[in-house]
């Protein structure tokens, strides 16, 4: 007799169970195992309840998904409309943009410069304007190519 068969027998035979418990008291609680129990109302009613709940959840899930999808679709449509609107505005601005302002007029000097030619690249020549005819004419030449101890 296998262990499982022995246990099954113990669960149905009080005399053997008493003896088994005297040998090993842990068999005390083992006496209530083994047998498969049926839920209140029976297996058919139980299975039917489970399937009803599953169908109900499935339906609720579908409705919830639909409710969830509808705002998403609306949001996507709104995004497309906004994108088209922005594109139209940008296009409109580009096409009706006013002409660029004219370039600043070149100032014509009234007097001739003191230094007319200077053979150096990158030099800056500043002539300080004079108030009267007797004032000294000051001309500043900034040229990095010139030696420092000039």
């Amino acid at each position: 007799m296998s262990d499982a068969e022995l246990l099954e027998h113990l669960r149905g035979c009080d005399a053997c169970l008493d003896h088994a418990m005297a040998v090993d008291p842990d068999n005390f609680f083992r006496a209530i195992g083994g047998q498969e129990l049926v839920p209140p109302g029976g297996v058919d009613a139980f299975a039917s309840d489970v399937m009803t709940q599953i169908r109900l959840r499935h339906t609720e899930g579908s409705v919830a998904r639909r409710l969830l999808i509808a705002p998403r679709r609306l949001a996507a449509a709104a995004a497309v409309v906004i994108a088209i609107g922005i594109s139209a505005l940008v296009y409109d601005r580009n096409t009706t943009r006013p002409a660029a302002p004219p370039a600043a007029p070149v100032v014509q000097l009234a007097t001739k410069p003191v230094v007319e030619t200077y053979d150096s690249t990158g030099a800056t020549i500043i002539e300080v304007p004079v108030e009267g005819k007797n004032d000294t004419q000051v001309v500043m030449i900034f040229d990095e190519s010139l030696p420092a101890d000039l």
Partner: protein
Amino acid sequence: MAAELRLMIPTKESVEPDDRQLIQIIREGEPEAFEQLVRRKTTKVYSLCYRIIGNAEDAKDISQLVFIKLWENLEKYDAAYAFDTWLYRMVTNVAIDFMRNKQSRENAVNSSLRLVKTSTDPEQGVVVQRKEIENVFHAVSAVLSPKQKTIFVMREMDDLPSAEIARILGCRESTVRNHLFNARKLMQAQLKKKFPEYSRLWEERA
């Protein structure tokens, strides 16, 4: 010749798909086959739930929840593993979560105490004795943690080997043995306190 003929006649057992085949059928788009799976596993699931929870109505609700979770997670089942191990894992997870709720634990203890009072009918003989042991179990197992109780039930009542329990709970076999050892000690102490007439069994042995 007669034997050969008998073999050719398909029996009910040979036609009925096993668990893995049934799940494959459900996955392939026949959700109605799930009802067949529910019917097949109801007593197994309910028995385990009832022994862990100790209350018929709660056990029924938890069993239903297990099957709903099973339906929702059926795609995750790996057919390389035994279906019952996977199912038992789901049962123990849901039952342990339920037991961890303080209110429900109190309800379980109270209901078992009520049962103890109503099940002492001497006319029912053996049935009463078994029922009495069941009631004693629910009363004294209230001191166990949900995990200890689950392990104790699977080992002592469902006769599952420690290795299988370890696979179900995702822990080591030594952990299962430790939980079992502690559960037995705690229950013996509780038995001595609440039901001294039964605790004599252990005392005599010691």
